[in-house]
C-alpha cells in the first residue's frame, strides 16, 4: 500500500502459546493506521512489524469464509469486516472468541461447535435416497418457500454467536445458536422431510429451551442471519407439534422442468459433473 499512515493505533493482543504459557496474557504494539485498514489488515501489519509469531485464522478477507471471528473491543466480530476507524478509538483489543478453547493466540477450537452442528443433521433428509445420490429431475420449490429459510442459509459458521451467547458461556451441552439456527434452516426447507428425526434431538435438554432471548447472537451476527429468530420460530414449531397443531407437510416432489417454448437467450446447462452421464 502506498497510502501514508494517518496515525498510530495501539493493538492489545491476547496471546497464548500452548506448552509454554500457563495462561493467556495481553501484549501491546503500536502500528501505523492507513486509510481503509481493517482489523485483519492491522494484524498482518503487526505480524510484519513486531510480532512475527502471532497466530490467527483468516482466508477470504471479505466476510465469506467465516475464519476470522475474534473478540474485538469486547464484541465478537469478523476481523476482516471491521474497519479500525469504525471502532471510534485508537486502542484495539483483540482476543480469541470466548466460549471456545484457545489453540494458540487468536485461534479458537471450533470443533465442538461443528460436532453439534453435525448432530442436528444439517442436510436434506428424504426417503428417495437414490434420487438424491443420482438426481434425474428437480425438487419443486417456489420462491416463496425459499424465503422461509433463505435468511438462515447465509450463515458462515464463524462462531461469533456462540461467543456472545450467555447460555453457551456456562453450558457446553446446549447446542448453541449456530447449530440450532441451521437445524431450523433445514426444518423449514420445503424439500426436507427430517423434522421428526431432528425433533428427537431438539426436544431434549440441549435444544432451544435453553434460549431465553438475551438476543446477543443476533446482535453480533456479521451476516444478519438472526439466529435468535430461527430459535424462537423453532420453539413454535416444536410446541405446536407437541400440541398436535403442526401442519403436516410432505417433502417437495420431484418434478419435470417446465415444458414449452424455451427462450433462446438462455444458455444451456453445463454438462453433469456427478453421477452417470
Amino acid at each position: 500500500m502506498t497510502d501514508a499512515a494517518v496515525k498510530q493505533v495501539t493493538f492489545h493482543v491476547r496471546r497464548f502459546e500452548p506448552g509454554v504459557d500457563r495462561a493467556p496474557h495481553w501484549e501491546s504494539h503500536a502500528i501505523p493506521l492507513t486509510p481503509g485498514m481493517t482489523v485483519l489488515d492491522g494484524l498482518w501489519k503487526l505480524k510484519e512489524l513486531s510480532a512475527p509469531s502471532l497466530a490467527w485464522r483468516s482466508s477470504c478477507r471479505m466476510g465469506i469464509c467465516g475464519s476470522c471471528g475474534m473478540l474485538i473491543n469486547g464484541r465478537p466480530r469478523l476481523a476482516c469486516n471491521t474497519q479500525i476507524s469504525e471502532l471510534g478509538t485508537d486502542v484495539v483489543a483483540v482476543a480469541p472468541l470466548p466460549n471456545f478453547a484457545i489453540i494458540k493466540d487468536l485461534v479458537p477450537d471450533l470443533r465442538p461447535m461443528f460436532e453439534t452442528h453435525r448432530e442436528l443433521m444439517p442436510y436434506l433428509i428424504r426417503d428417495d435416497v437414490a434420487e438424491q445420490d443420482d438426481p434425474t429431475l428437480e425438487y419443486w420449490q417456489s420462491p416463496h418457500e425459499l424465503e422461509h429459510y433463505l435468511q438462515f442459509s447465509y450463515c458462515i459458521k464463524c462462531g461469533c454467536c456462540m461467543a456472545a451467547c450467555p447460555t453457551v458461556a456456562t453450558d457446553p451441552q446446549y447446542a448453541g445458536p449456530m447449530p440450532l439456527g441451521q437445524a431450523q434452516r433445514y426444518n423449514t426447507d420445503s424439500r426436507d422431510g427430517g423434522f421428526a428425526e431432528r425433533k428427537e434431538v431438539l426436544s431434549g435438554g440441549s435444544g432451544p429451551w435453553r434460549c431465553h432471548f438475551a438476543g446477543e447472537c443476533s446482535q453480533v451476527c456479521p451476516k444478519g442471519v438472526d439466529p435468535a429468530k430461527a430459535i424462537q420460530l423453532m420453539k413454535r414449531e416444536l410446541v405446536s407439534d407437541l400440541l398436535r397443531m403442526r401442519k403436516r407437510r410432505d417433502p417437495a416432489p420431484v418434478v419435470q422442468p417446465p415444458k414449452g417454448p424455451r427462450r433462446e437467450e438462455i444458455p444451456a446447462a453445463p454438462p453433469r459433473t456427478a453421477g452417470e452421464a
Partner: protein
Amino acid sequence: MASRAHPNRLGIKGWVAGGRWGFARYMYTLHRLTGLGLLAYFVMHIFVTSTRAIGPESWEQAMEIVSGPLFAFGEYLVFAAFVFHALNGIRLGAIELGFAVGVPIEPVYPYETSVGRTQRLAKAVLMIAFVVAVWGGLDFFIWK
C-alpha cells in the same frame, strides 16, 4: 492426544456481562433475578400464610412478625418484581412462541434483527412496569 488448548468459557461472568451489549440482555438478567427473588418469597409466603390453618391466634402472630416497615418495603420490592416479571413474561411468551420475531427476511445491510424488531415491545414493558410499580408504591405507602 491430550489437548493443549486453553479453556476459555466465560462462565457465570458471561451471564451478567451486559456491558456494551443490547437491552435484551438486561431484560434477560432482570427476568432471572426477579424470578429467583419471587421464588424465594413464594416459598416463605407458603409457610407464613399456612399459619391460618392452625387458627386466628397463630395468623395474627405471623402477621405481627411481618408487619414492620422493613417487611413492608420488602413486600413492595416483591410487588415491583412481580410486575416486571409478569409483563416481561408476556413479552417473552410472544417472542419465544415466535409471534413477535417476524418472518425470515433477506439480510440486507444494515441488518434488521428480531432483537431490534422487538425493541419497542421491551420499551413498552419497561414503561408499563414502571407506571404500575409507581402506582403500587402510592398504594403501599401513601394511601394506606
